[in-house]
């Protein structure tokens, strides 16, 4: 479904596009496509910033590698705000920070795929994010997210998340996103 929405092309090399023209995944501002509060986005963006900083200490910007439905997407830089010492302490548990930080990046990916994240829906364990299309309509979509600090297998995690997304209270189409923070590799897949 998303292949109709997203243009698939090889990533641009740095020489082909000036730095300023590169699209970004911007964690410093709540995207319009996330309807929740600044507080909620900020909490997850903060966790993402802490994990990103642990792998990219000298900058608050890094090139991401995004694959949607196994195809390479537009090269985008991810930008974030340098976390404070207090924020680093708050997100001291790397496992949790990775999971929560992945939410913020997933919201940005959902926005890039023309979804609007309307809100959170609690589950017995964890939560689901509910989306609709940016163009409107009443169809409901699910967003399933998982984060990996480094290593691991994003491919198999993605397959698990897609499978998980296809079950539960809401049997609906959706999007699964896996974020591997060490080299900012982003993997997304939709299901109908």
């Amino acid at each position, binding site marked *: 479904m998303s292949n109709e929405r997203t243009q698939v092309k090889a990533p641009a090399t740095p020489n082909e596009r000036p730095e300023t023209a590169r699209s970004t995944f911007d964690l410093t501002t709540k995207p319009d496509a996330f*309807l*929740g*509060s600044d*507080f*909620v986005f900020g*909490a*997850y963006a903060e966790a993402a910033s802490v994990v990103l900083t642990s792998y990219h200490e000298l900058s608050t910007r890094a090139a991401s590698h995004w694959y949607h439905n196994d195809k390479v997407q537009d090269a985008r830089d991810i930008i974030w705000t340098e976390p404070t010492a207090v924020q680093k302490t*708050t*997100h001291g*548990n790397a496992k*949790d920070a990775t999971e*929560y930080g992945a939410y913020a990046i997933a919201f940005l990916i959902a926005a890039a795929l023309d979804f609007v994240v*309307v*809100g*959170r*829906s*609690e*589950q*017995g364990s964890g*939560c*689901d994010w*509910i989306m*609709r299309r940016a163009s*409107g*309509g*009443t169809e*409901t979509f699910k967003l399933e997210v998982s984060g990996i600090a480094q290593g691991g297998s994003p491919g198999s995690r993605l397959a698990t998340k897609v499978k998980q997304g296809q079950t*539960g*209270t*809401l*049997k*609906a189409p959706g999007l699964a996103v896996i974020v591997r923070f060490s080299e900012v590799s982003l993997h997304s897949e939709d299901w109908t």
Partner: protein
Amino acid sequence: MNAIDTYYNDPSHRRSEEAAVKAERAVRAKQRQEAERFYREAAEAELTVAVRVGDDGSEPVLRSLFAVSTVALFFKAKDFAKARNSAYLFLARPECLSSDGRDELEGLLAKIAREASLKQLMTEQPNAAALDLVLSGGQVGHGLIASRATIPRREAFQSLVDRAWELKGGRDFRRRGISTANVLLLEQATYSGSFGLRFIIMQKDERPNPSNDEPSARDVASYILELAKLATTSPDHLKDEVEDPAYAKAFLTAFRDLAADGKAIGSITLGYAATFDESVTLSHTVREQITTTLRTLDDREATPIRLEGVLKVVHLRGSEPKIGIEDLEGKYHELRIERGTQDDTIGAKVNRHVIVQGVKDLERDGERDNWAHDVQVAED
């Protein structure tokens, strides 16, 4: 504005989302009471929206999402009475819910009943400790598992509890006979997407303070998790921590028997019930590492052996305990077992298809003996 935006943009829902995020933060900071307070706040706010969503039956999916969310938030707040009441409130109008929503609410009711009964037990027995062992992956289904995969693990866990109590209580290593540990191991019915075994350890007698030198049920549970951490990160360190090699071997053997085999069971997690605090993962790799460490505990010069077949005979009496295996070609093999190391768990494996890992001693009283170190039920 469509129905999705209307209800999700309701200020009460946004308040609920913020409180839920604050609750998650408190959980991460191990501030349990704070977390429960925020979850309760989130649940109350969500409920005010949920009852209005599709109350004319026009939005069953959306109503189900809000209903499940409300009940799940009360559940996470450990307010089981309100969780149950709100579930009944929504289920009382089934025509307003989707069938998946009804199933999910009924599933939550089962979870609520289980956690509420544990909470009640913990109130009556404040010194009891509950641990969850969750088996997942491999051939584990949705709340289903082959009983041959659970039987040896129940035995291994019982052994772990007895041995942990005995060592903490300063007892010498028990080489034979029944444990005199003053703790009772109970099991609670489970409800799980994977498969969960919930063990409750409590004191056998009702004296408030049985004896100062006796470990409590909580001491035993915390010691088991401490040992499990060592067994999964570095089995060699467990050997150093537990100075008595017989105890070290017994603990490592029990953790090995609990661990996943990589085929029938992909992964096993052990931690405090419901919260999974201090949880450890007993993977197939951990099982292999422990087996390697167990071999090093045996200082005799030996070569590894592997045998597959049916366990036909177990002799635990006498000076040389033995087991007998009929291999896949019908040939009978006798192997010795170390006294006291497998007595707790071997019985459940008789007449089962097993894989034996062990060693052939090159030098032991001038004879060549086969020793079985790990008798694993072949669960595929």
